[in-house]
């Protein structure tokens, strides 16, 4: 594994990528490709699409390495790119079906102030609250709040109309607020 020989941090590697080092990009790729494949695989059942998204992601990392501010984990920054490349892939080729209950995500980029409140809540409480949401509301919360997608991107990912995502998100917010109050 090339990353075993490299003692640079992800941030240092990303800076090298911004300076045009393809070798640094490969070290980053070897470090992050596997978990990205597994995580993308939970959102997309077609391995061909997952491989395409992985490829697009690292091409985007190559082009956009200079945009990394040095704030936050490089892994989270890369994931934010990967999930959007997945949405792009679904735009080109809509998913046949979305594995609803398999949908998972993380506390990542947050859009509104209300969403930020969610992050402040202890993880266990949020997990419990999420668990009690109906699967279709949970899916929408995971895509918008936790994966940090916009309403339109989440709609694309889930294969739903944007209006449906919006109303489900409103219902989910109401339920979570009651649950966490």
């Amino acid at each position, binding site marked *: *594994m090339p990353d075993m020989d490299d003692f640079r941090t992800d941030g240092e590697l990303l800076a090298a990528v911004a300076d045009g080092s*393809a070798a640094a*990009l*490969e070290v980053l*790729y*070897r*470090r*992050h*490709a*596997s*978990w990205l*494949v*597994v*995580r993308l695989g*939970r959102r997309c059942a077609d391995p061909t699409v997952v*491989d395409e998204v*992985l*490829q697009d992601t*690292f*091409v985007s990392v*190559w082009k956009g390495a200079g945009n990394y501010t040095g704030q936050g*984990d490089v*892994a*989270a920054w890369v*994931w934010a790119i990967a999930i959007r490349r997945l949405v792009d892939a679904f735009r080109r080729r809509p998913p046949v079906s979305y594995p609803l*209950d*398999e*949908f*998972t*995500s*993380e*506390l*990542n980029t947050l859009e509104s102030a209300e969403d930020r409140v969610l992050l402040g809540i*202890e*993880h266990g409480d949020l*997990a419990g609250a*999420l*668990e009690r949401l109906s699967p279709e509301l*949970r899916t929408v919360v*995971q895509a918008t709040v*936790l994966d940090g997608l916009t309403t339109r991107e989440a709609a694309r990912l889930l294969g739903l109309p944007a209006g449906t995502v919006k109303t489900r998100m409103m219902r989910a917010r109401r339920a979570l607020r009651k649950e966490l109050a």
Partner: protein
Amino acid sequence: MTNTEWHLDTELAGRYTHGRVTSVLATSIEQHLLRCEVCRRLLQAAVQTDRLDRVWAEIIERVETPKRSLLERLLRHVGVDEATARLVAVTPSLKGSWLTGTTVVLVLALLAAQTNPQGVSVFLLMAPVLPVAGVALAFGPAADPAHEIVASTPHSAVHLLAVRTAVVVSSCLLPAAVASAFLPGDFWVAMAWLGPALALTVGTLALSTRVAPHVAAIAMTVLWMTVVVRGLVRNHDPLFAATLSVQLAAIAVLAISAAVLLIQRRDLGELLRRVS
């Protein structure tokens, strides 16, 4: 964050990899993975190396392919195949400096012709030499990524040579044709540079099967200059290059050179290998 004490073990990592965890547990795992390098390493065996290698090969190809120029994208758009479009786009005679040089020479020759009755001779002398210089540049030792293209092109060396020559010649002939429209006098006289231009260009290519292209180009240029200047001095005729004998000689050189190229076409690959 509160996740620092908690880590995945191999068993949980395996269950997560194979989708055998609830979605809420998966959420926790994924949140943790973003912050924990140790646990990310646990997943490194989850994907087969040859799959990752395959994707990486495609990434590195996209990353290292230089940006396509406007011309290349345009050619691709109208249906020219990728290798040919690339070939045309990287031809040095399409670089700005070459086109500027061509234009400057033509404009100067044109000015000479407009201001001086003897000036037409300058135009007729210079215009045929332009594509020869272009060919020398296109196939010469100048820095050029042609070697990569020759190595990667699915086409034969003859195809490469033909495409390049067509590009070079049209990049000179078109401006020269426009310029000649502004020449004073006969239309036929104005077009008299065309035959010698083709003859010198094809002659340079034919000679290039034996010597380096820039040597061939210099030889053809010197030959042309000597013939025309001697003719000008002896006959005091500014239109010497347009005389029937010169034109016929040009056609003869063109025919012989084309025949040589046809016979030597096997050596063309050698020519390209040598120069690129």
